[in-house]
């Protein structure tokens, strides 16, 4: 039915170039559709912000460090799930650092995927999203800093 064009022939239905053009158009459409359908809605930055807020709200109340939580962090018995109602999933990272303003005392607790922390702020494509929050608070009449890092690479 289809006759391929031969040089000098007057019978021209579809040339090989037409087939190539159709092929390119078809590939273009198929790849555009797959690109749109496989697109992920990225909530990682929002999730990192919420995580950091949750951790901050868990160790600080009314501008002061909660003594019970601070003691647990000091004694290394703090647990995000038990103390903050946060399940740090495998593609999340959370860290809280409490230090005196002169850095003579520094305690920290973290949980989750440490690679997320390492890649925070990286320009690499698909790098995790992070949120860092620092608050100065009073504890026993002394100035302390509470630093919280929330990181997320949770996209699926």
């Amino acid at each position, binding site marked *: *039915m*289809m*006759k391929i064009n031969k040089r000098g022939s*007057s*019978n*021209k*239905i*579809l040339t090989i170039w*037409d087939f190539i053009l*159709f092929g390119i*158009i*078809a590939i273009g*459409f*198929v790849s555009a*559709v797959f690109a*749109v*359908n496989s*697109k*992920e*809605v990225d*909530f990682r930055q*929002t*999730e990192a912000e*919420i*995580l950091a*807020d*949750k951790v901050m709200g868990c160790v600080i109340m009314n501008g002061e460090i909660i003594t019970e939580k601070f003691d647990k962090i000091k004694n290394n018995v703090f647990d995000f*799930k038990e103390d903050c*109602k*946060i*399940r*740090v*999933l495998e593609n*999340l990272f959370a860290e809280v650092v409490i230090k005196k303003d002169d850095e003579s005392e520094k305690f920290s607790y973290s949980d989750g995927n440490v690679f997320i922390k390492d890649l925070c702020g990286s320009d690499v494509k698909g790098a995790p999203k992070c949120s860092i929050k620092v608050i100065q608070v009073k504890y026993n009449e002394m100035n302390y800093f509470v630093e919280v890092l929330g990181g997320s690479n*949770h996209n699926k």
Partner: protein
Amino acid sequence: MKGFLKMNRKGFIKDNIISIGLVIIFLLAILFFLNRTSDFGSFYAQAYAKKIAMMINSAESGMTIIFDGTELYEYAKERGYDGNLVEIDGSLVIVRMSSKLSRRFEFFNNVVPIVSFDKTTKKITVSIT
């Protein structure tokens, strides 16, 4: 000679009609493919699952969050799906657009949420216990 030209013109018109026909078939095939595949249902299901998970993450015990789910309802309706649009399975939010199409997303807040969808008001209600 006259007969030959007549036959050649006839052949030329016939070939062109076939060419145009083939191009139309190709375009119709592309339109059919786009109609079958360019479905944003999966995208919407995913967006809703993540949105609900973020709301649960930021919520505190005792809170109730109500938000609009009209788009979700319309997409499910288009597919003739009448089942549960949103449900919670442990720490997973599951959004269904049809019996086959569903997307899920895990929340980190260690709470027990109850999610419901009101088909009259098209509102999604998330209650945190």
